[in-house]
């Protein structure tokens, strides 16, 4: 079936470096994607979203890139900080926008 998945289960970076978290999707008809951040013991927190009519969207220190040709999206975090340590999930709607399908998640570990 259609799915959203992640390339890397764990990403370790040095504080101050840029981080890139990747996500592949299989449904070419998908037109909306969301990135969530989940800190240990907490619920997922909305970070940023992007619609398929865009290739790039920027937030505060975060940028999401969408490549529809290869069905790939990425989350870029600039100047990664210890507070960015968390698990990051990509997600896409399914079932008439009543449901979200989540990827497996990537753990980001930031080292001083």
């Amino acid at each position, binding site marked *: 079936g259609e799915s959203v998945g992640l390339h890397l289960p764990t990403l370790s970076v040095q504080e101050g470096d840029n981080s890139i978290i990747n996500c592949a999707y299989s449904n070419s008809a998908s037109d909306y994607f969301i990135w969530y951040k989940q800190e240990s013991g907490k*619920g997922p927190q909305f970070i940023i979203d992007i619609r398929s009519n865009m290739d790039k969207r920027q937030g505060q220190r975060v940028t999401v890139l969408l490549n529809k040709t290869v069905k790939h999206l990425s989350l870029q975090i600039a100047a990664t900080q210890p507070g960015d340590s968390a698990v990051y999930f990509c997600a896409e709607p399914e079932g008439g926008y*009543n449901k979200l399908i989540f990827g497996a998640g990537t753990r980001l570990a930031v080292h001083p």
Partner: protein
Amino acid sequence: SQTIHQWPATLVQPVGSPLSLECTVEGTSNPNLYWYRQAAGRGLQLLFYSVGIGQISSEVPQNLSASRPQDRQFILSSKKLLLSDSGFYLCAWKKGPSTDTQYFGPGTRLTVL
């Protein structure tokens, strides 16, 4: 602004005991509501969702049930807990069918012994 609450935050229950987890949303009306379960170190599994009072859709066969007695209240229940029911339970809401982004509550950590 909208807020979502879950309680209790943590719960330890014996096998075979009943369960009731509660989720409430403030600051919005007629939201879509969702229950997810997350095993340790894993992704999110959708259990139930509701588009209105008394309307429940079940995603996976299981030992749990859900109810929506009020517009902004969503309850997850079980008559007899199993060891496999242990996990992190998350409630989420979104504004309705025309929007996509879901917002999550703080979660309930359930341990069944």
